[in-house]
């Protein structure tokens, strides 16, 4: 779960990490008022859970309250990468001497947390790694020791800082690690962390992503995840999440339902292989009970782009006859009238196929055949199936 910049900054501040003074606003008027408590110049920043807001015009500078109002007017209601901007963070502009990069994330290969730091910051990590790899410090955290003061000082030294500055910087790094642990973050990042003209360090940007699987330990955030506009997820994605289904909306017109993440991804790929476009990814989970398949159909069919639904269930333990009955019941309940292509394999397979065929739904043997059929229907090349 991604946190907004302002949430991350408030957390940083609570832990004693210097951040620019700032205020949150949800209207241009509120932004103007908020800025009266700050000293100018200020920055007005779109609070949105995708990167690239700067390039999209979501970060503007202002020298007076009326300029703040103007900037907020422009930014609020803006759509950045499909997400509506509902609030802005107005904060004091800081005097930059150097922009640095600091991040704690997961190293999947080493199976540990890893600290990434660079004396070059303010651009994305891929660019840092590509352009100035010699300046990137990569430090895996050994769980036996944790991330201690001497580790942090070593990194600050590698970044070129000595004396008091080294200590200050190291203290900030340790606090970011403490937040990572406390919050079960899979990413905690300051990009940039700014060295000011005065020689201090300030987190000019802050990003935190909490591990979704650890949200049960952080109920205050878990609750917020489902509030409208409070996450990067679409309403349909949230609805699926509430029902315990993994759904991702896509651009095409072939609705896809399957069991198991890998199998559903492979189903999407097969649809594309035959020249079709998937409308979504939907994984009902390994078990695929009739009930879950029914909720899945409800969600997929609610997408108006969908003109055919392809269900690919590889039931190991799941009984195909139950799934077949579930599909028919769901079809009735949802009032889904458009064509369906089904591939069903597993226990009581024959009975499942029989039930579906009786109801006029066609069942195919292999996922490849079924994908090809779904694509033909989506393209209107197979009228007799409709």
């Amino acid at each position, binding site marked *: 779960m991604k946190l907004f910049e302002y949430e991350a900054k408030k957390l940083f501040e609570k832990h004693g990490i210097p951040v620019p003074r700032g205020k949150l606003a949800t209207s241009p008027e509120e932004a103007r008022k908020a800025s009266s408590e700050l000293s100018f110049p200020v920055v007005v920043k779109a609070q949105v859970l995708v990167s690239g807001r700067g390039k999209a015009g979501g970060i503007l500078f202002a020298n007076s309250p009326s300029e703040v109002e103007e900037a907020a007017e422009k930014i609020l209601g803006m759509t950045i990468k499909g997400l509506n901007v509902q609030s802005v963070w107005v904060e004091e502009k800081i005097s930059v001497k150097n922009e640095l990069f600091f991040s704690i994330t997961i190293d999947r290969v080493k199976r540990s947390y890893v600290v990434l730091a660079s004396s070059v910051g303010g651009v994305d990590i891929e660019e840092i790694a590509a352009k100035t790899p010699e300046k990137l410090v990569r430090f895996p955290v050994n769980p036996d020791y944790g991330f201690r003061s001497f580790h942090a000082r070593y990194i600050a030294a590698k970044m070129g800082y000595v004396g008091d500055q080294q200590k200050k910087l190291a203290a900030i790094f340790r606090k970011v690690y403490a937040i990572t642990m406390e919050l079960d973050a899979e990413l905690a990042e300051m990009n940039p962390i700014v060295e000011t003209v005065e020689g201090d360090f300030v987190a000019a940007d802050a990003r935190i992503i909490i591990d979704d699987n650890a949200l049960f*330990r952080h109920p205050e955030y878990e609750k917020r995840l489902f509030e409208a506009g409070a996450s990067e997820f679409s309403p349909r994605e949230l609805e699926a999440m509430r029902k315990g289904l993994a759904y991702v909306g896509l651009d095409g017109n072939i609705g896809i339902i399957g069991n*198991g*993440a890998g199998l559903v*991804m492979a189903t999407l790929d097969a649809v594309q292989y035959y020249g079709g476009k998937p409308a979504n990814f939907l994984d009902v989970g390994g078990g695929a009970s009739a009930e879950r398949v029914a909720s899945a159909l409800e969600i997929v069919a609610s997408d108006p782009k969908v003109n055919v639904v392809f269900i690919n269930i*590889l039931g190991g333990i799941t009984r195909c006859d139950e799934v077949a009955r579930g599909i028919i019941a769901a079809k009735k309940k949802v009032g889904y009238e458009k064509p369906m292509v089904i591939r069903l394999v597993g226990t009581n397979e024959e009975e499942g196929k029989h039930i579906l065929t009786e109801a006029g739904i066609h069942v195919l043997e292999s996922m490849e055949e079924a994908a090809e059929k779904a694509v033909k229907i989506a393209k209107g090349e197979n009228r007799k199936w409709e």
Partner: protein
Amino acid sequence: MGIIVDRNTRVIVQGITGTQGRFHTKAMLEYGTQIVAGVTPGKGGNKVHGVPVYDTVAQALEKHEANASIIFVPAPFAMDAALEALENGLKTIVIITEHIPIKDAIQIMHLARKNGATIIGPNTPGIITPSECKLGIMPAHVFRRGVVGIVSRSGTLTYEIANGLTRAKLGQSTCLGLGGDPIVGLNFIEVLKMFEKDSETKAVALIGEIGGNLEELAAEYIQNEGYSKPVAAFIAGRTAPPGKRMGHAGAIVMGKAGTAQTKIEALEAAGVKVAEKPGDIAKILAEKLRS
């Protein structure tokens, strides 16, 4: 032969009295897996399908000999269960549980490494050496004993491919699911090494998906070490958009990293034939094994 589990594997089921634990204990027993005991806190003294239940792993081991564990404990308590198995010296631990926090998984893997234990999962279907031992939740009927080793990051996709192999009269030596999470106990290279040493395995099916770079590292290994057995691969998620988690916690393209394309290119550069569709794996391997 086969790897990690065989007819000598003696198993403790942790979380045996839950719906999942109970159901799959029965299925594993029916398959012939030696399940010597179960553990559920507070349920000691009961029996599940004839298997005695204890409150702790230590108590189970006072009465029975075991060398492996399979965990069906809910995510919030799964780390505890895994550490219990580790501290009591079990060397093969399959963690079926999905949604375990990353912080917990890191701790489990760290202690496993120190203890010289092998963790399969979390979020895995488990491991099966056909006709010897099933330590997992996979449907047994799609597997047949034979010469192909399967290592995969996906559950149902593994069944799909194993089913295809079995129908093409290509049996399997061992099939192992690495798990769909970002932090898992084994990687492709470690399993490829085990298959290399296993005399029964003549070819390997490697089933990957988007996210991370385990497939790229496997490709590098295959190329640099001159891997001796033919490998065919399938990578799921060619159509996955960046920044979206595709069902598995670990299946996510971050920026330009972890795409299906980079994995496919790396594997092909290493001489691995990558199947366009899951059904093609059987054809590719049949051909490679014939020549």
